[in-house]
């Protein structure tokens, strides 16, 4: 369907991860990582990068900005996506709204067809060029939110269209109106597929906001770069940033799996 990121496959993923870990260990070993001197150096740099002057707080603040932007953008994306998908589904379902539908389609095509980074720059430097007292984070939320709205619209639409049309027919044949049938029969079923995909979108967005540094937002990625500039050290701050992203994404992924199981409880394959 319209997912941006491939989901990680289980099982085989573990083997790949194992090989990767071995490779990493070998690389560390051959670069003399497991000597006492290397450890001392590692600790000294660790202290400089994260401990001294509470520099870890820069990462914490960056993380806050990243989560704030991602959450805000997801909320906007949900609202926009809902409206767009209602237009598209209703149009297909027989409501005569060709102009609205064409607009929705254009919106989705344009916003999915251009990089989020480019959209962000246009919002910041063209559309909101004169709005200087506005917190740049709000501009980023708007830019990412409108962008993800296009993806979320497709998630909603895909979720609704994945439901057997017979469900709508059965509901209508009992005398329920289109709206009621949608609300009580189709949407609740579609949501089972939609909700996990929305979390995947959240995960994709979380990573995507890492370009926000370009317009001057100290998000998690940028915080790592700011520490780099302070200590002039390349690897540790970035690796730390990567680890933080990874941990969040892995927790979310695990949560989504559990959620999926729970949503599909009581159902046979």
């Amino acid at each position, binding site marked *: 369907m319209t997912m941006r990121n491939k989901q990680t496959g289980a099982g085989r993923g573990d083997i790949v991860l194992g090989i990767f870990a071995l490779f990493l260990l070998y690389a560390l070993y051959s670069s003399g990582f497991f000597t006492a001197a290397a450890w001392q150096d590692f600790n000294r740099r660790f202290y400089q990068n994260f401990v001294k002057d509470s520099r870890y707080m820069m990462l914490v603040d960056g993380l806050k900005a990243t989560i704030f932007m991602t959450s805000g953008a997801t909320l906007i994306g949900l609202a926009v996506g809902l409206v767009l998908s209602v237009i598209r589904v209703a149009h297909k379902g027989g409501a005569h709204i060709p102009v609205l539908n064409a607009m929705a389609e254009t919106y989705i095509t344009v916003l999915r067809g251009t990089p989020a980074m480019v959209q962000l720059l246009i919002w910041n430097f063209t559309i909101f060029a004169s709005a200087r007292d506005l917190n740049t984070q709000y501009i980023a939320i708007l830019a990412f939110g409108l962008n993800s709205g296009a993806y979320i619209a497709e998630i909603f639409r895909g979720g609704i269209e994945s439901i057997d049309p017979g*469900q709508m027919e059965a*509901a209508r*044949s*009992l005398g329920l109106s289109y709206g009621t049938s949608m609300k*009580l*029969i189709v949407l*609740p*079923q579609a949501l089972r597929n939609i909700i996990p995909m929305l979390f995947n979108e959240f995960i994709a967005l979380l990573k995507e906001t890492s370009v926000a540094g370009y317009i001057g937002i100290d998000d998690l990625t940028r915080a790592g770069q700011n520490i780099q500039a302070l200590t002039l050290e390349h690897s540790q701050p970035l690796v730390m940033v990567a680890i933080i992203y990874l941990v969040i994404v892995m927790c979310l992924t695990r949560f989504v799996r559990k959620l999926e199981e729970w949503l599909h409880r*009581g*159902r046979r394959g």
Partner: protein
Amino acid sequence: MNDYIIEVKDLHKTFRLQDGGELHVLNGISTGIHKGEKIAVIGPSGSGKSTFLRCLNRMEEPTSGIISFKGEDITSPKCDIDHVRSKMCMVFQHFHLFPHLTVRKNLTLAPVELKLMNPDEADTRAKELLARVGLADKIDEWPDRLSGGQKQRVAIARALAMNPDVLLFDEPTSALDPEMIGEVLDVMKELADSGMTMYLVTHEMGFAHKVADRVLFIDKGIISEEGTPEEVFDDPKQPRTKEFLSKVLRR
């Protein structure tokens, strides 16, 4: 002959195909059903049986013709089609139970939502109907845990929960394993005996013979033969009917 509960006059249905062409599926059907009557609709595959049935409650929009239900022209834009449908319920080949709702909820949702009953009444009625179709113990089960025959019996109960005037069956046993057909036909027989008005599209000739008051043979979008089961099954007049029956019965 004005005591038809449903009356169909010169019904045409043309599908517009994606390649721009047209498919004439119904080519002028005029018929009707009396209160308490059971009509079996038979005919070759693709002859328009389902389309005919689906036009009756406007699941398909008729291209032309008039359909009246209890004297009201339901093809007119003024007609409250949702209300008509609640009195003319349909049972589908593939059941279409709502899988996210328990059996109980499947039965009570529409009556309560349409304010035909309050929740307690609907609940009592659901229990009654499930007992009638022999599934009283499944009331809190999820649809996906039922067998095909059980699902179709629940679907029939769901339609009955609306207290409809007419039931429309579209091949209710065609998707079932042979050993489950009997249990569904039994329920339908009991319904028929209780005086329900029924349109029944079916390939179960034996059942049609036993239950129907009248049989319509639809071929190429028109009713090409019509009569009592004895007339149509035992002494068909049209060569097409003979050919069709000989093929079906040989099977």
